[in-house]
């Protein structure tokens, strides 16, 4: 899979590029493109494809929060065990173990703030290993997945120049 890096870069930029266009960009054959992507999927390197959505532009109802979680571990319980319990909830969009002042960084999504608060207090906080939660509601997104939101992207160049 010698072209994997280039293809991954292109797919991260736009997962909807057609096989034909990917072939044109890279100079590879369509068959090679298909093969490589199939391998990347089979090996779990590509975990899925998703859209980068500015939900604020769709409705005001959806709420996202970034939640800090602190945990205590014991001989029987590892980070992974805690992660398994937390990640299972439908509300949880992202979960990462991080260095620094807290252990897990959690991304949660819900219909409104009450729903998200209730989810944290009723489902997450009671997990025995979790000692502390701090919830930060997302107020505005400026950039996500490499895409700038509200980027006017006005091309103010003259239309024809030497």
């Amino acid at each position, binding site marked *: 899979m010698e072209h994997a890096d280039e293809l991954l870069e*292109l797919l991260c930029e736009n997962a909807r590029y057609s096989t034909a266009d990917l072939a*044109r*960009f*890279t*100079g590879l054959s369509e068959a090679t493109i298909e093969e490589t992507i199939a391998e990347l999927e089979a090996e779990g390197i590509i975990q899925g494809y998703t859209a980068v959505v500015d939900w604020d532009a769709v409705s005001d109802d959806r709420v996202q929060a970034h939640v800090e979680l602190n945990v205590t571990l014991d001989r029987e319980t590892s980070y992974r065990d805690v992660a398994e319990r937390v990640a299972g909830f439908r509300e949880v969009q992202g979960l990462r173990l991080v260095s620094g002042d807290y252990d897990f960084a959690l991304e949660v999504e819900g219909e409104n703030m009450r729903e998200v608060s209730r989810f944290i207090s009723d489902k997450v906080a009671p997990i025995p290993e979790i000692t502390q939660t701090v919830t930060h509601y997302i107020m505005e997104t400026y950039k996500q997945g490499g895409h700038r939101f509200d980027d006017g992207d006005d091309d103010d160049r*003259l239309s024809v*120049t*030497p």
Partner: protein
Amino acid sequence: MTLEPSERVADVPPSGIRRFFELAEEMDDVISLGVGEPDFSAPWSAREAAITALERGQTSYTANRGKRKLREAIAADARRWNLEYDPDDEVLVTAGASEAIDLAFRALVDPGDTVAVAQPCYVSYTPGVTFSGGEVLDVPTRVEDEFILTPEALRAAGAESADLLVYCYPNNPTGATMDRSELAEVAAFCREHDVDVLSDEIYADLTYEGEHVSIAELDGMRERTIVFNGFSKAYAMTGLRLGYAMAPEEVIAAMNRVHQYTMLSAPTTAQHAGIEALRNCREDVEEMRSQYDRRRNFVLSRFEEMGIDCFEATGAFYVFPECPGDDAERFAEDLLEAESVAMVPGSAFGAGAEGHLRASYATGLEELREAMDRLERFVSST
């Protein structure tokens, strides 16, 4: 008439691009492949350096030759192309490479001198020579040679008697590049016939196959060559107006004499951006280069699929296809009218360009794709 323009100026026609620009400007929803500048913005850290300089109140003139730190960074950067210039005496920072080229004409050309201009080329060389009172000798390059400059083309034009030769590789408008052996033949011609060289290398960093080579690196050429480069293309800094020339001390001194009485110094804010660009923005340049390369592959593939003949341009951000119609100017106008896609007829870029179109791929992939779809529709309907 009062305030009558000089004959020298009156004799120079307006740029051939001008009329086409006016047509395109009148229309909405134009996808332009006619733009000769990057669609990217300058790297953020370069812009940030400019902002910081302004915040600190650094708004005075600089030394005529440009800030020393910038000249040092330019000289250090030139070593990538095996060029050694002394930042004190052999580097001149200018308001864009265009100013540097104009300075060279004014510093070197006497009335009646002959300047051979390899064409097709950027639109300002011929007027620049004329403004300096020189005689232009057109040296058309050929599509059969993929628009590189050859000794045969030079001889066919009678360039043996020229005092100066000016060319640009990687080339605007063709996207052609020249490798070491091809340049060596031109160098041999210039040494044999005592022709000095103005080498416009503004697109040097946008080379997609192999490495850029400067003719100044070749045997016996340093002393007869002025190298021009700048920040407009590779660093996407066109509007900041920053370029430079590198040449032996005496030439730089002569150019600086004109520069000090006209421009004084290149824009100070831009010079701060330039220092940062050279020191810390290689990765940004590389990223832009790889984006251009991708687009180049895309456009060339689509042309091939449409049956449009186009040699494989390997530099700058232009491809130079043969016009599918008989008359390139007519074709470009009809395409603009019917599909709102702007491509510039080759004839705007001088001799040897007839029957071709310049397509710039300094445009986002989405727009390029739409432009190619429209072009395909237009070509198949005519």
